[in-house]
């Protein structure tokens, strides 16, 4: 297997992943012995492995990131709540123009209907005969012959006769 001059570590290209595992102690028994056998014969891989061994020791000396503590979760939850309330406000703001237009439309429509009803009622009152000229006016055609006789009741028929008789008496 060829070495890997491109990256300067001198290890065989096909063995780099195995060497990383070897360094990490992550190889199973059979794999570990295969790599060990290879290391006995390959100077490039052996040198590369020796060089990088120190890197693991150096890196493991560094302090990992500290736990931010219990206060961090509280801060996150406060931010979550603030974001949620802001989102609900934004949703309300989004619909607000539509709601406002709706109310304006409803108010205008109500006013228009009211005006129409008022106008209609006024016009109807004008067309309807009022108390002074309440009954329909009978216009007689003076040139036409009277075809109908006014209906009279018994009292009206008898009254002139009674008056006449009274005069005679």
């Amino acid at each position, binding site marked *: 297997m060829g070495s890997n001059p491109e*990256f*300067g*570590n001198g*290890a065989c290209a096909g063995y*780099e*992943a195995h*060497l*990383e*595992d070897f*360094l*990490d102690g*992550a190889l199973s028994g059979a794999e570990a012995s295969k790599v060990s056998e290879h290391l006995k014969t390959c100077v490039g891989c052996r040198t*590369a492995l020796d*060089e*990088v061994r*120190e*890197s*693991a*020791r*150096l*890196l*493991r*000396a*560094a*302090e*990992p*990131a*500290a*736990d*931010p503590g*219990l206060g*961090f*979760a*509280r*801060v*996150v*939850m406060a*931010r*979550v*709540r603030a*974001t949620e309330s802001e989102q609900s406000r934004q949703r309300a703001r989004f619909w607000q123009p539509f709601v406002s237009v709706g109310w304006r439309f409803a108010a205008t429509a109500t006013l228009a209907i009211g005006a129409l009803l008022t106008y209609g009622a006024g016009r109807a009152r004008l067309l309807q005969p009022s108390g002074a000229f309440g009954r329909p006016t009978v216009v007689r055609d003076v040139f036409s012959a009277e075809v109908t006789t006014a209906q009279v009741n018994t009292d009206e028929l008898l009254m002139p006769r009674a008056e006449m008789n009274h005069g005679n008496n």
Partner: protein
Amino acid sequence: MAHVPKTMAASAQAMALPLGRRGRQEEDRELVRLSQNGTEAAFEELVRRHQQRVFALVGGILRRQEDVEDVAQQVFLKAYLGIKRFDQRAAFSTWLYKIAVNECWDYLRKRKVRPLTYEADLSEEQVSKLDGLATADRPPENAAVRTEARELIQQLLAPLPEQDQQLLLLKEVEGFSVQELAEILKLNVNTVKVRLFRARGRMMESYRRRKARSAKTSALQAAVERKA
């Protein structure tokens, strides 16, 4: 706010109990289900469980401690807003770490900044400290020494490509596994191993080079002092 079942509403003490990875994942699954039903306390518990790893991941990518908390908060906020869409096919941690990585890239792009790099040369004292760490049998126990070591190592890693730095920090310092790194960074497991191995080589090459430069500078300084 609905109540989290007693087993789930574990306090920090309960969380410290040794739990198997599978057990933790099962608990995460239940907490996610509760969060999806609107239980805020369950999500708060998820934050507590994963905040340290998210800090480590964000810190490993940005390497600016002052920005880490802001970005980590943003990661959890995005997770909360998107949790109803999370189908639980992957582990919650994997899903969360992917959000964290994307958030870091977004942050770096918006700010148009490169992760913090130290360009300064290593002093003779720093080199001798690093030598001590490289040959020590076990990592230092003193937290102050470890914090100083982290700063020195970040200086050492500075000339390396971004991905080399991230892989080395996340794997060796923050303790992410190769499998996790492959999932988070959307890479093949073997690719991660090869890149890690090559990154180690580059790191040690940078170390040797800077060590040599430091020795040269010291020698020059000594010569100037002698002449003076």
